[in-house]
């Protein structure tokens, strides 16, 4: 075989096998560190373990115990309240800000957009550290401002009283995520044809009617996406309460979330099997809720 032929044979071979070489590193790590653990977690969920070493098969006992554990009920309760606040409090605010920014001929739109978005650049842990100090009684920013404005007691213990932990968490997450979701809403609002609003004006529609019949249908796909995404994110809440409450679940478990419950059982108590069972319950819950949300929001389509 001549040198030229050999060269072209090598060229053909490297062309043929190139895609396998390109995906190989990714696929290898993907199989070992994602797919295998995923399958393994399904098996592990039926075992009681003590650290990574000892395992005893217990059938459905993990799930039975889980459903009866009052701590798990508290975790679900807290997580659902937090998620509801995200959807019903935070998203309307995001949409409101987006509508303000979408006004025609607005000056400084980019400045406002960046300003509202910027808290999202700060990671959850760092936000939690910052706000744990902002919530300090007597000297914290929040109490000093609220005391001056509304005469709220200066020594209000936001993170030390069971009934105030959740409001503190919701307030913090509002600051962090309002601008993030606003970006999506703003992008959706900008795709709505201005002529639709002009036509509505000609028909003498009120601002509320315009919102209901032009804005809402226009942003529906994005809104569903944002609702589902922020619900899923809310269900994975962990860093914010864990760091703000100094690595505890807070007074009376007021800051206990599903993922925190998973972490405590898996790594403080050392039962990786039980932690897997919790993980699958979380997955199931998120899956069902997402489907329900998509169903509910899809059903609006028929009456619009």
């Amino acid at each position, binding site marked *: 075989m001549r040198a030229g032929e050999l060269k072209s044979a090598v060229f053909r071979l490297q062309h043929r096998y190139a895609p396998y070489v390109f995906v190989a590193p*990714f696929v290898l790590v993907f199989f070992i560190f994602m797919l295998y653990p995923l399958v393994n*977690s399904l098996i592990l969920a039926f075992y009681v373990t003590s650290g990574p070493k000892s395992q005893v098969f217990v059938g459905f006992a993990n799930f039975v115990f889980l459903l009866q554990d009052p701590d798990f009920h508290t975790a679900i309760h807290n997580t659902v309240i937090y998620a509801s606040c995200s959807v019903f409090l935070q998203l309307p605010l995001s949409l409101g800000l987006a509508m303000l920014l979408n006004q025609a001929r607005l000056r400084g739109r980019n400045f406002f957009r960046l300003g509202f978005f910027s808290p999202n650049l700060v990671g959850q*842990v760092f936000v939690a550290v910052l706000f744990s100090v902002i919530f300090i009684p007597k000297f914290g920013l929040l109490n000093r401002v609220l005391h001056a404005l509304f005469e709220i007691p200066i020594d209000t213990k936001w993170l030390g009283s069971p009934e105030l932990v959740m409001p503190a968490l919701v307030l913090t997450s509002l600051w962090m995520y309002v601008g993030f979701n606003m970006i999506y809403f703003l992008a959706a609002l900008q795709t709505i044809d201005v002529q639709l609003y002009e036509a509505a004006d000609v028909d003498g529609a009120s601002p509320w009617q315009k919102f209901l019949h032009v804005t809402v249908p226009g942003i529906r796909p994005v809104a569903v996406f944002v609702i589902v995404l922020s619900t899923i994110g809310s269900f994975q809440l962990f860093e914010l309460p864990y760091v703000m409450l100094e690595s505890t679940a807070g007074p009376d478990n007021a800051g206990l979330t599903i993922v925190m419950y998973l*972490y405590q059982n898996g790594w403080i108590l050392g039962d990786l099997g039980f932690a897997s069972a919790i*993980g699958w319950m979380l997955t199931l819950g998120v899956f069902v809720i997402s489907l329900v949300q998509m169903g509910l929001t899809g059903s609006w389509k028929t009456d619009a």
Partner: protein
Amino acid sequence: MSATKAVVYALLVAAAMVMLTPMVWLLAASLKGPDDLFSYLFFAPTLSGYNFRQLFTEIPFLRFLMNSLFVTGVTVLVQLIFASMGGFALAKYEFRGKKPIMVLMLATMTIPAQVLMAPMYELIYRFGLVDTYMGLIIPSAVSVFGMFLFRQSLLELPDDLLQAARIDGCSELRLYWTVVLPVARPMIGAFCLISFMASWNSFLWPQIILQTQERFTLTIGLNQMVGLYSQEYGALMAGTLLAVMPVMLLFFLLQREFISGLTAGAVKG
């Protein structure tokens, strides 16, 4: 200016003030001396570097910072190489097993990461990687999201361009390096930013894996400080400020790269 316009601006300015106040307060608290900490709401009349000195002399903060930079830097780089190569293969080649791989990847994207933590920990334990940087980096070496991002953007890359390079004798690996990567530049900027933020801010997995203080990343180190330094929070605020800076910096750097990359077309006609 009409009345509605005035109301709109008033609301926007009020909202912006609420959003920016915690950041300004963070900056002010970092720059207050120990005696001014509780006396002024925002900035003290004299700025002090006391908190930063505390941070670097009393706490192994520099060590945390270096650990975070190292772990995040390696993670971003590895994710970028794996995801862009994989994305290129999925976008521009036909090969056996392509469909099943993509279906599997899409399926795993729908499952919360917390499900994987227990078995992943078991695996890392068996490999003897608990309390190592490798234990942090390896499990996050693949970004399924990143791979789909690159696949999506490379689908638009014209096959003619690749074919022309091949006729000129360009090997597939060189094709990846000299054609694909430059074309994907805006995507690389965006992906690096997202990947950097995720790794820099990650907490739960490092919290599970790391045990020795000298290997702590910033998130773990700062969380430890919350309990220990809640009385003199100046250093804590200075630490938070420094921890947030790299992401902010990268955002402003890459924002420009992202936009200019989008507008500069690599292929014409």
